[in-house]
């Protein structure tokens, strides 16, 4: 070999304008005199070296030729030729070496008329092949095995193979992967592979939290990069469930949110309550609210393993239907889901929640509390009875109250609620009056009569 090298390098002395360097690291370079040893690589792995050509002369030079010749060697990032180099200018490129069989390898780099010899050695090693798109592909040390997007809590598997392509048996002593990746489960190490023998294995990724995961897989002295991106699994389909679907005004109703299956996801969202009055003129009703929050929204939280969503920390929460006719719209936002459910509160006749009647020496007082969810009360009817239950007078006493209630509802913001005090002057003995029956008329009709005792 030495006589050949002497022959190859003899023209260099005549043309010392361009010089070859190897760049070990940024800012560190060494001149390559006649040859350079790239080092040792396991079979199938790549060695990559950065080389530099510099114009060391005081005049311009043109790089006319740059090539590499040798089995397993290739050049990357080399410049387009010809390349004009002013004095002191560098041009960098990379040389990559990879060979599948053990042995010594060399190549000749030619830059213009100058030559340099590059050497590399390949030691026998097991080849790692990893499946991608249904095909097994050999990987070099440092290669990335990317699992892509994987749901937290699930397990993604890449099929792989260790193959001995060498002519003699090889032993694999160590094969490990950092969490949350796993490899070689069930593989009995150390493992000796005869020439041409292969063994299958699985590389898996089991993320336990959302985010990017990176770890190294080590195969004896070689390292491969493992990468995965864990995403939260989707929530199962949620359903908004009411303790009663048939609701009316002045009710407190329970609502819960259930999943069709056990949730694999954890996260939070909101359950919102909106109100659409039957008519725009009715406006809003402040009593329509979730009692827990005193507002129109509660926090919705679900954890992995739950079969329902916790609303404001509880399995269910209570809301009021208010005293205005309209539609209650519930909107659950949880993960990618937006679920809506509606409850209709129909227009109803006015209702009395409580009634009290009192006698005074010259008058009677009737106090009624209740609601009119149409806010259209127009007439009240009072029928008085004596102590023995016989009606007093020729018929009911009527009061046309449409204007009074219209003004009242315009001035208040309490839905259809009202408290009414009606006073009746009495001529004669008020003590003879035993009861009063009240009927109220609104746009939905006449309410059932309510008898109130004095």
């Amino acid at each position: 070999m030495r006589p050949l090298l002497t022959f190859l390098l003899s023209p260099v002395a005549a043309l010392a304008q361009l010089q070859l360097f190897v760049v070990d690291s940024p800012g560190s370079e060494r001149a390559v005199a006649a040859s350079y040893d790239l080092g040792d690589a396991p079979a199938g792995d790549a060695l990559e070296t950065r080389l530099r050509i510099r114009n060391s002369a005081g005049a311009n030079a043109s790089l006319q030729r740059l090539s590499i010749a040798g089995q397993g060697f290739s050049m990357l990032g080399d410049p387009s030729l010809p390349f004009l180099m002013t004095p002191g200018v560098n041009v960098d490129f990379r040389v990559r070496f990879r060979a599948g069989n053990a042995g010594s390898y060399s190549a000749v780099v030619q830059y213009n008329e100058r030559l340099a010899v590059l050497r590399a050695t390949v030691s026998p090693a097991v080849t790692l092949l990893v499946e991608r798109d249904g095909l097994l592909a050999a990987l070099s040390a440092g290669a990335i095995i990317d699992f892509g997007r994987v749901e937290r809590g699930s397990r993604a598997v890449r099929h792989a193979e260790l193959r001995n392509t060498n002519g003699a048996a090889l032993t694999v002593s160590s094969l490990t992967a950092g969490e949350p990746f796993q490899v070689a489960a069930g593989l009995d190490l150390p493992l000796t592979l005869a020439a041409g023998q292969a063994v299958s294995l699985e590389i898996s990724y089991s993320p336990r939290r959302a985010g990017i995961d990176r770890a190294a897989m080590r195969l004896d002295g070689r390292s491969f990069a493992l990468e995965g991106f864990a995403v939260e699994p989707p929530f199962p389909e949620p359903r908004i469930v009411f303790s009663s679907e048939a609701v009316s005004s002045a009710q407190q109703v329970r609502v819960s949110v259930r999943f069709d299956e056990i949730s694999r996801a954890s996260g939070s969202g909101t359950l919102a309550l909106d109100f659409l009055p039957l008519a725009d003129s009715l406006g809003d009703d402040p009593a329509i609210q979730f009692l827990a929050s005193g507002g129109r929204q509660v926090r919705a939280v679900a954890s992995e393993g739950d079969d329902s969503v916790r609303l404001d920390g509880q399995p269910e929460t209570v809301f009021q239907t208010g005293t205005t006719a309209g539609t209650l719209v519930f909107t659950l936002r949880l993960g990618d889901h937006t679920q809506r459910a509606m409850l209709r509160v129909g227009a109803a006749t006015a209702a009395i929640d409580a009634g009290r009647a009192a006698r005074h020496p010259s008058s009677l007082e009737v106090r009624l509390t209740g609601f009119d969810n149409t806010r259209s009360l127009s007439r009240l009817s009072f029928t008085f009875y004596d102590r023995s239950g016989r009606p007093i007078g020729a018929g009911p006493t009527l009061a046309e109250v449409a204007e009074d209630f219209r003004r009242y509802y315009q001035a208040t913001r309490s839905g259809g609620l009202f408290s009414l005090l009606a006073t009746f002057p009495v001529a004669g003995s008020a003590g003879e009056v035993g009861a009063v029956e009240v009927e109220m008329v609104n746009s939905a009709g006449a309410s059932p009569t309510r008898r109130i005792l004095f």
Partner: protein
Amino acid sequence: MRNTCVLIALLTSMTAEPDRLDVPRIGFWRSADGTIRQLDGIRGNLIGSRVWLKGAVSAASSGRRTLVKTGDSILALDAGGEVVWRLEAPPGRASFAFTSAGEPARAYFHETSELIQLPDGLRAETPPDPVVALSESAMVVRRGESMWLIRDDGSESPLTGARDPVALLPDASPIYFDGVELIASGRLPRRIRLPQPPEWIEPVGPGWLHVRTSTESFAVFLGEEGPELFGLPAGRR
């Protein structure tokens, strides 16, 4: 026919007097953070978020008057929430009693075991046993592990199974927890199950009680058909 002697006429304009048509007012209640809130509404439709006072350690409302115990005073509010009088008081919790007309009658200070008349603040004879609850004419005292209802006429009767807290209605009917249910004692005892044991019971208006558990506030309506339980708006406070 006597009924022909009774002539009834309707006041034709109810709005001639502004208080004839109004929002139903129940009274006031004390939330767990010591805030006094107005409570309006009816059964199943309560509105109770308006704040009137803070720093209350006890409260009771007849609807007509509300008594609030702060760190060093008793405040009396009218039905509109305005302070009508104030009285210096020893520290700690207090229990209050109203007359049947809803006016303040007396107060008991638990830390100092003092009983006073209201609204003048004159000290009354203090019973030898710790008072748990009081009305205008009776009180509930603790004797060892048991509770006793003592009326001003001298009669005494045990409240079998009663545990703290206990409340007395203006007619001296006791409301208490027996470890499982809230019992409204009367001619026909009525029961209602609570989701959790109560920590305190305070009257919030005619026929209404505030029952506070460790996590939530409820309004109990004492109607003819027995007690009914409702959630209070923002009752987790």
